[in-house]
């Protein structure tokens, strides 16, 4: 593995993010420690981790694209395919399951007309069944992008989805 990391003159990221990355790689004793935050920020900016992002991040750190993929594929929160504008993550882990999480997930499938890891044709919603998201006390819980919605029922879920659709149509 090389330690040389020629800086990209051209970047696929926004100037702000590129500047943030420039700083990030200098914060740790070894550059590759910056890998996970970089992947996450890249995903936040671009919706998913693109091949181009993998190449640029590898180059910025001075590791191979394969190294980046090794780490990237380990984390289920990092993805290499686009999702909908609103990514609905329904928890069906033990607490949520006991409080109707599974049913809620089925309900979302019906309502959105897509299955696990699928996106609606208009690209507004995507659905995913996830493991515990740390909101067990208010189960069943759903995470949409970075926002939490808890203590949900089918009706409450519909209201949440409607609200996002309205936002999208604005």
């Amino acid at each position: 593995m090389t330690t040389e990391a020629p800086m990209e003159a051209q970047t696929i990221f926004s100037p702000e993010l590129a500047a943030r990355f420039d700083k990030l790689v200098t914060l740790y004793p070894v550059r590759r420690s910056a890998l996970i935050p970089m992947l996450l920020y890249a995903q936040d900016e671009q919706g998913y981790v693109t091949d181009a992002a993998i190449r640029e991040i590898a180059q910025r750190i001075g590791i191979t694209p394969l190294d980046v993929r090794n780490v990237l594929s380990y984390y289920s929160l990092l993805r290499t395919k686009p999702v909908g504008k609103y990514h609905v993550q329904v928890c069906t882990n033990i607490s949520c399951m006991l409080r109707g999480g599974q049913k809620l997930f089925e309900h979302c499938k019906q309502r959105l007309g897509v299955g696990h890891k699928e996106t609606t044709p208009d690209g507004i919603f995507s659905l995913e069944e996830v493991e515990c998201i740390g909101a067990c006390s208010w189960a069943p819980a759903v995470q949409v992008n970075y926002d939490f919605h808890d203590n949900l029922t089918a009706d409450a879920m519909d209201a949440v989805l409607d609200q996002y659709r309205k936002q999208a149509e604005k």
Partner: protein
Amino acid sequence: MADVTLTVDGKKITAPAGTLLIDACRKAGIEIPAFCYYPGLSLQAACRMCVVRIEKIPKLQTACTTPVAEGMIVATDTDEIKQSRKAMLQLVLANHPLDCPVCDAGGECELQDMTFKYGAADSNFVDVKNHREEQQWSPVVYFDRPRCILCYRCVRVCGEGMDVWALGVQNRGVSSVIAPNGGDHLDCEECGMCIDICPVGALTSGTYRYKTRPWEMTHVGTICTHCGDGCKTTLGMRSSGDGMEIIRGDNRDKSGINGDFLCVKGRYAFDFANHKDRLTQPLLRNAEGKLTPTSWEDALAFAAQRLRKIRDTRGGEQIGIIGSNRTTNEESYLLQKFARSVLGTNNIDHHRTADYVSFAKALAGQEQRAASLRETETAPAILLIGNDPTEQHPMLAWNLRANVRHNRARIYIVNHQEIKLRRQATSFLKISADTYSTCTRFLAGEENSAFGAEATALREALSKEPNLLIVFGAELHGSAIESLVRYGLSLPDTKFACLGDYVNSRGAADMGMYPDMLPGYVPVQQPGAFATEYGERFPAAPGLDLPSMLDAAARGNLAALYVVGSNPVHRYGVAAASLKNTFLIVQDMFLTETALLADVVLPIANLYEKAGTVTNTYGDLQFVKKAADRSGVRTDLELIVRLADKMGADVHSLVPFGQGTRADMGQSRGAQSGEADRHAVWLAAQNLEPKLSPFDPSALLDEIQRLVPGYHFSRLELFSGNDQHVQATAHNTGLVQIVNPAERRDGVLPSEDTLFTSGTLGHYSGKLTEIHDSRNKEILVAAD
């Protein structure tokens, strides 16, 4: 480090502090199973097969990560441990297809062995297995994902060992998978290390897969025929319609100088032997000028009669001989002896790939200054000038990387290219291609002008190295080698290695395949014992070197040229017309550019099909065992002897057979030795070992041992397959040199081979060509 004493299974053992428990046990003959642990690679502790019980520690511990400690009490074979290992195996087998009957690794699979041993064939899992189709990742690497047990040996050997980092692990938990760097294919050095190291049949080889079962092959350990490093390789043979065919090259034996390592050529490039263009009949040029098949008797009689006539009417100096970089020491020795004592000429040379003559001269009178290949793995500091070992000496490159990894060796590189090894280097000095000798003189303090601050810093750093090993490529020759050696000798305990290109390039040089040097770099003008040994035909004056022979031929001044295992027409760009007045005899496996012009073509056996010895570029002498066999070909040794016989020479004085007390009665004949071996056993029991055959290489080895200065070695070690370091020392009589060294041209022409080429042989290796082409295709696509 100090030794510690511990008790394992009631037995007291000692090991140096810091040793891993697993190594200490294995050394003491106590077996600890392991999938993920592999000596020389980083620790993984992933498989839990190596668990042992250590007193006072509540849980079972992994022996592969636990260093030994004083007073430690260890149990390795209790019911509890067996049960734990069995449970691990059941987990591994939960998603492992039980396709042993069709799996390539069947019969030599570590998982099979473990399952057999711990009886984990039953399973509590009912889940459906996760099947994936096999994938081809490169011309030689195939991957069967379901068989992978995720030991990560392949990932580590490719990254840490090869410094290629082409394999990774993706996903996690049960869905973890080994992934190649190109997405669906590999961009790598194709060494096949990952395949060999895989404990199961998950990674399989493009040349071997589904061809045979391991127990159906005969295995013979011999020496790779390609580069000058001379790795030992275990060839797997199977009888075929016309002999014994090589099915596989690997080094599961690991007893050789190369340990675990083989590169792409050693592992896959043996298929030239089965190339469809291989010659299996002698050819004679007929009245119409066409090469037509003939019998051995006719071909040899004709060639001998012409040679004899030319010698007797026009003189030996009208005959030239070009030898090979791939024949054994015995053959090279015999060829020059034949030239000098039968043909009466010193016109003998070969394609020189390194200036061994200057090296030997510079080291004259010095003992223990030439380094063995083994020392490149242990020397604390190495100065590498020129060459690109990753491409040209893959085994050396492997050793240097291992040395940095394990011993933090300091590697100082001077090169005109940014060679890959600079990634392991302490310092890298880039110079321009034409300044190697200036740079050397600068280091030696023999250059007045400055050579830049970096070079000064390098010289400063080197002056502090007490045990430097200097390795240099063909960029250095003549007086530059002499400066370098003078410089090295001014530092304490320096050793040297001179890099030449082919398996027996060094041997050819040591055996005197030069117009002006006899075996052991004894100058022709001061032949010493050779004068009487080689009889009255031995000419007193040096002969023509290779380019001069070709020039003489072009001028119509060379009546005959005998080319053995070489392709000078291609290598030196000779015009066909320039050889038209020369009677040309060519010994080769193929109709090369040179053979096409010959009057007589004699088909020969390659290094895998004969016995003898070779000397690698470091001076490590090794035993070549006959592995494969091909009907219709003869060894170079046999052909030279028969040619001499047909010329009316006394074969007894050419090959000292039928005398002395030792002979090869089969040790060297490998797979076919059965009958001869039984006789050998009887003869050995009677203290009898007569050399019975004039084609017996060991009769010539006797003479080499007797006459070549510096070739001191033990037969026992040799026949045991162990390497021994020899140093053919330059003649050092203290007499005035007759030749002015400045006038001598060293004639070095580096072969510029890469990882994927190997001179003429490379063209005839289907696998090497396939790999070479597939890489070029990728490069073209990438450039689009």
